[in-house]
């Protein structure tokens, strides 16, 4: 099979490029070693759409962040992905630093920045710690769901002709007359252009492609996810004044009504563990922003790994191999920057300057939780499966799960379903619905329950039957 472009790595960056190149009317394939898109850093982060005041001026980070902010809000609305321009505060007691951030933001072209005193801050967040005296308010900052945005970008691309290959690990890349011949255990294709957006696996892929290696540092960020039933702490994102390594431990609502507190920033290898020290550090630091955070309403600890290459993103044409694009070190604000990176790669690096084609619209997942009574009744009358609740915490019906199983990327794992329709995302963390979701997947995909996986290959829930036939 021949393609114009092959993208290796299905995180937010890879999927944004997949989407953009599909809009450019190219034949594109996304190759992902995992069993779904957004299974690396794109599923475990703060899901903040940054304004862009934090990046050093004249960097790729600054440029793509500010442009990406604008593009992301537009894209998310087009794709019906939940997004909210709730704004963000950076708070502390060092007015000089606040001024510096303000000026940096101005230099980056960020609009809607305001320096606030304590009284003004309190009108936005009444629960702020008493030690906080000043802060920066960024109007254009917002929140979304990083994995839902990634999924939606890929889905829209697939509906419009792109292809996605899961569980596929490229093993060999050979230059040929067409461009490159890419070979995996389950794949043999040709592509004129290859894009390495493998994130944490960048160097592994670069080695196979024969392109530049980059020194990568992994920094792990751990989080708390607090229950939606707590008394709201804040309706916008609050950062402390930033440190050299990260934007610090933030507190933010999620688009689904829960609260995220984190992340830490630890030098690490590429593993997403959580640690006692890390979680305690979050508790200690977060109280500097808001004192009484109900950590006893924690429903999930998770962690993600940032991939860092020096001070800036690497978005470049390989000089070693023609027609290969290297994307490395896309750490924060990578989620925000992704659509801008995609635009730059498509138009500037690859030179596809033609206008975007009109895309067939993606059908958003039904969300019973968000419907009113009349809409629910209409839906249930049409299909009674929407009246069968499977996940009690997030009010997810059988109909929604079946819909997700038939969605464009054909997800088949429990976690993929969880990301799409939120079954198991609530306070009981699947205590009630896990076995029902496993059963639903098995029945609808016509596979045995033993074959159903949590996330990637090998993560089967069941090891054997009770009373196996002798």
């Amino acid at each position, binding site marked *: 099979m021949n393609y114009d472009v092959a993208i290796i790595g299905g995180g937010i960056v890879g999927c944004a490029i997949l989407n953009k190149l599909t809009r450019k009317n190219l034949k594109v394939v996304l190759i992902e070693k995992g069993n779904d898109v957004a299974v690396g850093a794109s599923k475990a982060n703060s899901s903040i759409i940054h304004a862009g005041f934090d990046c050093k001026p004249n960097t790729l980070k600054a440029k793509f962040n500010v442009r990406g902010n604008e593009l992301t809000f537009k894209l998310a609305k087009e794709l019906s992905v939940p997004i909210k321009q709730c704004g963000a505060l950076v708070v502390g007691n060092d007015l000089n630093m606040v001024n510096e951030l303000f000026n940096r933001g101005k230099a980056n072209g960020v609009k809607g920045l305001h320096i606030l005193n304590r009284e003004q801050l309190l009108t936005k967040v009444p629960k702020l710690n008493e030690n906080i005296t000043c802060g920066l308010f960024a109007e254009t900052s917002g929140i979304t769901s990083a994995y839902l945005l990634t999924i939606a970008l890929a889905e829209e691309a697939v509906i419009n002709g792109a292809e996605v290959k899961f569980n596929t690990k490229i093993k060999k890349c050979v230059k040929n007359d067409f461009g490159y011949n890419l070979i995996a255990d389950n794949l043999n294709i040709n592509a004129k252009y290859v894009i390495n957006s493998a994130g944490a696996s960048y160097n592994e892929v670069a080695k196979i492609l024969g392109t530049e290696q980059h020194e990568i540092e992994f920094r792990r960020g751990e989080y708390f996810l607090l229950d939606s039933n707590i008394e709201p702490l804040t309706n916008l994102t609050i950062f402390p004044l930033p440190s050299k390594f990260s934007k610090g431990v933030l507190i933010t609502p999620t688009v689904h009504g829960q609260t995220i507190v984190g992340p830490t920033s630890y030098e690490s290898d590429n593993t997403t563990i959580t*640690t*006692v020290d890390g979680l305690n550090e979050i508790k200690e630091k977060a109280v500097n922003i808001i004192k009484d955070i109900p950590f006893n309403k*924690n*429903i999930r600890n998770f962690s993600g790994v940032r991939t860092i290459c020096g001070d800036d993103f690497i978005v470049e044409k390989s000089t070693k191999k023609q027609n290969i694009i290297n994307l490395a070190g896309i750490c924060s604000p990578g989620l925000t920057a992704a659509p801008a990176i995609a635009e730059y790669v498509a138009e500037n690096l690859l030179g596809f300057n033609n206008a975007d084609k009109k895309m067939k619209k993606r059908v958003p997942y039904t969300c019973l939780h968000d419907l009113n009574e009349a809409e629910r009744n209409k839906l*249930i009358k049409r299909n009674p499966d929407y009246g*069968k609740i499977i996940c009690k915490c997030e009010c997810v019906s059988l109909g929604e799960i079946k819909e997700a199983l038939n969605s464009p990327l054909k997800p088949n794992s429990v976690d993929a379903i969880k990301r799409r329709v939120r079954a198991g995302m609530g*306070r009981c963390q699947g*205590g009630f619905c896990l076995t029902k979701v496993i059963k639903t997947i098995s029945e609808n995909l016509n596979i045995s329950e033993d074959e159903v996986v949590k996330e990637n290959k090998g*993560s089967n829930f069941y090891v054997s039957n*009770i009373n196996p036939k002798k």
Partner: protein
Amino acid sequence: MNKNLMYDVVVIGGGPAGMAAAIESYNQGAKTLLIERNEKLGGILNQCIHNGFGLQYFNEELTGPEYALRFVELLSKTKVDVLLNTFVIDINGLNVTIINEKGQTVVQAKAIVLAMGCREKTPAGIMLTGSRPVGVYTAGQVQKMVNIHGKLPGKNCVILGSGDIGLIMARRLTYEGAKVLEVLEIMPESGGLKRNIVQCLNDNNIPLKLKHTVTRVVGNTRIEGVYVAEVDGFTPKLETEKFVKCDCLILSVGLIPEVDLVKNLKLNPKTGGADVNEFRETNISGIFSCGNVLHVHDLVDNVTYESKLAGTNAAKYALGKLTHKKPFNVVAGNGIRYVSPSFGYMSEKEDLMIYFRLSSRITKSYICVKCGENEIYSKFVLAANAGEMQKIQIEKSKINGDLTVLVRGQ
């Protein structure tokens, strides 16, 4: 409002609590609706296929499904309306919003009985650290996998927490050919029933390690093992940490009353359930609560007694027969972790039924109830564990003021 959707009493949850409450409500002459989210009645009892149920209430030893069936049969002789496969998604005052295959609608009640049971504490609830691979489950999840779905989630299991479901599952998994390597308990004593420790662990040579916990989970795709350490208080002694290879970690670390559906419910911080009066009525007039949504029980028999009380009184309330006069408090004194209910009424003639738990294990002590300076009840106890719920019944004629339940020596 559709007349069919108006009831004297709506009972939410068709487990042992809800069934007992619905039957008693009906017996009082109230038009009663029982709502159950699953396709059949019985609740968690349906997955508790071990025996030991009903020794107090039926004076015989039944399995969970058998115990449930007794009430399903009793219920079938009543005119209680039962809605299966139906979820309650909101309770607003005495209006109950339900959703099922027919659609969403509101049921109007004169009284509501909450009988939704409890949920299990998750890994996040104990801040379990390490990786998050497949193979980490709560004990109830594993019970469902094994007993309802006929599937084994692992062959070499470690159980964290010696709550009753964990102990029961240790035995069950052993019977099904899995090896239970050890049961870890962070406390100096098990919270499980003595009989379960003997029958489930000792009889199967499964070690119970007190003052031990899991410090982290290892494994990317599948769990490969856990690090286990001794604790000093709740702090792991890292020098004692050792790796235990396993393919399944099962948590039995506590149960939380599932109260989230009801807004503005006043909770008892000790139980996580509602704060109730002797009728098992919550701070919201007309809303009653019983079973594990009120406080987590260890014996279903006690759930039944408590729920009959809640069902009876909910019906009386709906029919305008309940009086709330001359209130008195019931307080947890020395050695008592909590009491339920936390207040009663001298105007009520029926005996006062108090459920409570001890703060810690006692030996050769008296459990007493004081009314002012007078000791109106006392019972000698040779030995009792904190894990075992206690129950006492007090004649109303003896009560003329606030009560304190306490433990004293000779």
